[in-house]
């Protein structure tokens, strides 16, 4: 990593550390949501940005994470920590099955299958209201101890830092090189001995488990989990954030998630139409600046020097 990059990451981390003491309670909530979306977008970027497969099941895996751990906590009194761990394992197994089923068949099939899977998850959660309480939402306990937004913030922040560092080292390893080889040219990658299906499957399972982690943490922070987490609306937000920030870059999803989260606070006065504004912004970026904010800024800096 270049020194300038490292310095800016460190500054961002320090700012994040002291931020809870500077902002109001209301903004703290937005920040925690922002961190949730940073986790979601960064892990989605791992499959979409680095191996070039569009999965629409990311929100569904987050839903599996939070509902697994929520139901375990409510019905069996299992502490959220183990619940989230179970959720991650379940999501990993499911994404392994789903991926093994459709990844060997090329991009369109993966997108359609994950879309179908995502709808299956949502329909089951809405219909099995005896267990999941359907659209009413399931009340779940806090992560641990007494409810405190500051605790939640630091736990989320720790998760974000761990995940980002983890993703960084994965991308720097041989596996990361294989990710990009598969994305750029599948046939060429296969011809030099990259196990294409295995590489794609690995990225898919990693992303699915990270989504479950994000969903589990967020659910136990919100105290109420609803079918909105595993919905296509959440999926759209994650996609929009990654696209706006910049796909295939480390900083892109982080910038995009925080940008949209802050933007949403300022356009909240327009009520439900803020999704329309997001979508239009995302479309403008996807159409005219496909490298996103980070790629665009990077180009500007390169041109100047």
């Amino acid at each position, binding site marked *: 990593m270049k020194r300038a990059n490292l310095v800016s990451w460190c500054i961002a981390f320090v700012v994040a550390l002291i931020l809870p003491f500077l902002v109001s309670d209301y903004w703290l909530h937005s920040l925690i949501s922002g961190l949730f979306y940073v986790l979601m977008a960064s892990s989605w970027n791992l499959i*979409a940005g680095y191996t*070039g*497969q*569009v999965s*629409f099941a990311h929100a569904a895996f987050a839903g599996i994470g939070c509902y697994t751990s929520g139901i375990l906590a409510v019905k069996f009194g299992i502490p959220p920590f183990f619940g989230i761990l179970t959720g991650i394992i379940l999501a990993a197994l499911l994404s392994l099955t789903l991926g093994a*089923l*459709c990844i060997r*068949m*090329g*991009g*369109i*099939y993966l*997108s*359609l*299958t994950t*879309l*179908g*899977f995502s*709808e*299956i998850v949502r*329909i*089951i959660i*809405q*219909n099995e209201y005896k267990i999941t309480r359907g659209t009413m939402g399931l009340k779940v306990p806090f992560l641990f101890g007494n409810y405190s937004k500051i605790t939640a913030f630091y736990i989320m922040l720790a998760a974000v830092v761990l995940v980002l560092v983890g993703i960084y080292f994965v991308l720097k390893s041989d596996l990361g090189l294989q990710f990009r080889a598969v994305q750029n040219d599948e046939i060429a990658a296969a011809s030099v001995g990259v196990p294409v299906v295995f590489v794609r499957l690995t990225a898919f399972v990693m992303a699915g488990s990270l989504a479950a982690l994000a969903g589990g943490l967020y659910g136990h922070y919100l105290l109420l989990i609803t079918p909105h987490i595993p919905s*296509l609306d959440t999926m*759209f937000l994650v*996609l*929009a954030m990654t*696209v706006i920030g910049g796909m295939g870059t480390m900083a892109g999803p982080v910038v995009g998630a925080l940008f949209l989260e802050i933007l949403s606070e300022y356009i909240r006065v327009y009520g*439900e*139409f803020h*999704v*329309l504004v*997001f*979508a*239009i912004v*995302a*479309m403008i970026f*996807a*159409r005219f600046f*496909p490298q996103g904010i980070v790629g665009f800024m990077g180009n500007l800096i390169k041109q100047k020097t």
Partner: protein
Amino acid sequence: MVDLLLYLTNGIVMGTSYALCALGVALVVGVMRVINFAHGEFYVLAGYLSATFASALHLGIFPSIAMSILCVFFVGLVVERFLIRPTYGNEMYSLIITFILYIIVENLYLFIFGPYPQKPPNWVSGSQNLFGLFYYGNQRLVSFVTAALLISIFLVVLHKTWLGRVIRAVAIDREMASLLGVNPTRINFFSFGLGCVLAGAAGIVLTPIFPVVPTVGVGISLTAFVVVVLGGMDSFLGAVVGGLILGIVENLGVAYISSGYKHLFGFVILILVLFLKPTGLFGHRQFQ
């Protein structure tokens, strides 16, 4: 027994409209290799336009249908020209663009037409006694006949005319077709518009029976995708058969298993097809 017959009738009537809508997806995927997420939104557009033209402009039923189909065609062309064309050859890019388009359009409908169900006037009223067993709405029968007729016209045009031959040529081998003097970009342009018209036609046929709300579009798209995967992505006949199968399965499932899970049956079929025969019932090749 009477029940079973009623559910089968319902299934075939619904399935024909599914097939009509899915033919649009099959056309766009076949020619352009693009999955259009906003496909169902053109169904909704046609439904809203025909309702609005009929109620606000006091047009007759058929002029308003003709006008809405025309509008859908032109909106489709505009979308192709400005959003889909830059994505040629990059299927991931087109997926992302059309997914964002679906969110934009769905929220626009909410903004323009409001959240309440709207419906164009019925074409006919009354009902028929079918097989001497149960009464069935005339509108449904007329819709069924119209959809079946449109499918037949589409298939005849595709297989018997010059235009159909050109479209199929581009679908089978782009480079070869362009070597022989076909302009593939223009065929893409036209096929996308035609695909949107097929979705719109399904909307015209079904909205007198099922009023439109802004959010039905995604369900329609998903159903069409399931049908296309089931029938085989490169087969138009497959889309027709797949539509009928899905219509029948959904209606039998609703009747005998659970109505809350109506949309689940389609996705279970989708995953089973991918597992057992990824090329679909009538398909020959997979799309990379």
